[in-house]
């Protein structure tokens, strides 16, 4: 319920703020490939062949960003490695998604496998940190990622558990799935949108993959001073959780911008929440505070 109030607040700000924000789709498209490579000097990691070949379709791929992930793919399941923040945050965001989707699809949140029968795609699944829990909760999961190595690792990791070995992992992009006319009851992209080349086109693809009245879920990092301090300075430079250069603050979205982009992609945001980290307990929790990490759950328009 807190998330509803929050959403109202966000939407009010939205209507009163000027629409000419720096993240208009055209602005983004201009700054896509070439801009990214000049702004962020990268470690000389080879771009996997699969990515080169996939650039022929209109794509959300930001090759520089993708290369960053390819370089650290080996560490997906190292709980103390670069993806430690995702692992730590995972139970919190999964429980938010669980209760939100249970409300949306009218499922019993008290049973072990409430997502039984739901088709869910995890876009930018990485090593499968989210795909696996979704599968254990009963969903029929497709996990896609632009980095082939991620997909390999995700598949190998999932095969030991019969509940997760049914996940369909694919090295592809949301755009290609749209071309193939795939449809899902829920489309989820966590911590991906800040790494893609064309966020608004990306959202349109997510929307196109969602069945009418289905759910689209996006989480990302806010563009605030706090997020700059936490996500970049603290996580990358002080705590060394993430390799330096993982995030570019300028590519972060505010909740208002995200709601707007999704609206243009025919997805109405229904719930929004923040995730806050308590450095004392080392635990994450769901809150109204969207100033660093936040998640939005929207419904695909039925027409």
């Amino acid at each position: 319920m807190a998330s509803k109030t929050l959403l109202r607040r966000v939407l009010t700000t939205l209507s009163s703020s000027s629409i000419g924000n720096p993240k208009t789709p055209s602005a983004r498209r201009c700054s896509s490939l070439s801009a990214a490579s000049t702004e962020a000097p990268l470690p000389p990691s080879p771009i996997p062949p699969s990515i080169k070949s996939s650039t022929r379709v209109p794509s959300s791929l930001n090759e520089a960003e993708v290369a960053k992930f390819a370089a650290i793919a080996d560490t997906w399941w190292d709980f103390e490695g670069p993806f430690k923040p995702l692992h730590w945050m995972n139970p919190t965001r999964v429980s938010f998604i669980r209760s939100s989707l249970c409300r949306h699809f009218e499922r019993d949140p008290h049973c072990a496998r409430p997502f039984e029968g739901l088709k869910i795609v995890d876009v930018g699944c990485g090593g499968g940190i989210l795909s696996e829990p979704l599968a254990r909760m009963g969903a029929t999961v497709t996990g896609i990622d632009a980095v082939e190595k991620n997909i390999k690792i995700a598949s190998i990791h999932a095969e030991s558990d019969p509940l997760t070995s049914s996940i369909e992992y694919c090295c592809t992009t949301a755009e290609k799935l749209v071309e193939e006319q795939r449809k899902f009851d829920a489309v989820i992209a966590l911590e991906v949108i800040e790494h893609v080349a064309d966020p608004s086109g990306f959202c349109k693809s997510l929307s196109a993959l969602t069945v009418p009245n289905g759910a689209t879920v996006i989480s990302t990092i806010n563009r605030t001073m706090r997020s700059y301090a936490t996500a970049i300075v603290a996580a990358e430079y002080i705590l060394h959780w993430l390799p330096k250069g993982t995030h570019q603050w300028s590519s972060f979205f505010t909740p208002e911008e995200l709601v707007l982009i999704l609206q243009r992609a025919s997805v109405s945001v229904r719930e929004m929440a923040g995730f806050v980290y308590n450095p004392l307990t080392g635990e994450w929790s769901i809150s109204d505070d969207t100033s660093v990490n936040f998640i939005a759950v929207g419904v695909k328009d039925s027409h």
Partner: protein
Amino acid sequence: MQSSMLLNRVFARRIVATTFRLFSPRRTLSNGGSGGFNGEGSVSDRVGTLEEATDQRDKDGMTSNIGHYDVAIVGGGMVGMALACALSSMPLTKNLTIAIIDSNPALRSKGSFKQDGVPDPRVSTVTPATISFFQEIGAWKYVQQHRHAYFDKMQVWDHTGLGFTKYCAKDVDKDILGCVVENKVLHRSLFASFQDTDIQKTIYPARLTSMAFESPYSSAVADSQPPNEQGISSGSAYPRDTSRKQHRECLAKLDLDDGSCLFAKLVVGADGAKSRVRETAGPKTTGWSYPQSAIICTVEHNIENSCAWQRFLPSGPIALLPMGDRYSNIVWTMSPKESTDHKLMSEDDFVRAVNHALDYGYGPHPQSTFLGLPSDRFTWITGQGISSVSEYFEVPPKVIKVASERMAFPLSLMHAHNYVSRRVVLMGDAAHTVHPLAGQGVNLGFGDASSLSKVIAEGIMTGRDIGELSLLKKYEKERMTANITMMALIDGFQKAFSVDVGPINLLRAAAFHGAQYIKPLKRNIISYAMGEQKWPLLS
């Protein structure tokens, strides 16, 4: 690319009643070790449904003929069975597949047990918290069908004639202080309740010999096949041999003494004080033996006993716990030499010794209520005022007969440094033996089972791998806290004993927790204070 080649792996879950593993033919060849059951009688004598615990994923490259389980509980004693029962009773966990590994023949009988006859000397004093846990998991109704003795009064006094208190449930707004139940009744009640449920369960009548962490793929089949047969969606570029191993999720692989083996996501070591799981998983323990022993037996009275009695004698406490049907249970702590004597002496002599110890022996009756300490000093322990000392001292009912064998065993205390590691959890006596006779041991174990079942449910709620260390740490944190609470209690004893008179109000708190073993702790604490020993429950 997004072909459904992975989808045919969907694991068809069987919903079956209790499945028992067939005895493997190798069993008869195994040379001892387990000692317990030696294969007398045929399998069908004791099993209802028989189903081979085989694995159905062979065609996908999983090692065949090896059972795969969510949870493998090593040790189906009271605590292991309590966990099994708790898991099978909660909506979130009842879809788990559970294996129980224990050669104890009690897990093969259909659980009918007769109530009459002389009570077994192995009993536990269960606390109200344990009773509500049993109610939650559906086992208390079975306890109620059998012999059990609630008590609402407890008298504690010492041999000096100075310390005395009588403790009543109504003083703390409770109906009862506890309930004395034979261990076998607790165990069978849990087993019966477990069998009521339709959770998918397999009982391995064997003992754990060793444990390793392996991917179910790493053996034979998988690695000898070409990569594409594994069903990985795309191609080739990735050097599979080394990296595959690196990214594979390992499961716990358990080898049993009958030659069988199984894989589990989570192994629960509930295999008692000499835990094999603990030995193999490697958490260090701190432990020592007291230079004390306890003698336990069942005794008979002329009249019904309805109070728990405890008296502190120079060599240790003697407790007389009500059992119903005019029986009581004796737990008497003394030196090892004395315990041997008391075990071997004639029954008549033993009865005389007990009556002596519970009456005028070693010192006078308490003359009157006497508190050696200002009463507000210890009120923190119960959070209650000190109010129940108005009642008069009573002499416990006389013992007329020894009704069971007398069993003597040494006392020891052990505590594991860690309760958890990846895919492994210790609980019950495998994690901590507080004292083998106080009844507190098993209450702590039931607390472990309750906590672990809730942590597992929480893990399932968020779709986690239930063997994940960060999840299991929650259980460890919670249970270690429970122990620290107990340490605070022990600290209270220390303060009381350092004044050497009437630690009586503390004993009320102790009694409330079922701890009837002040003397050994006192000794321990005093030697700790003198710097002779490390603090018992800390590393």
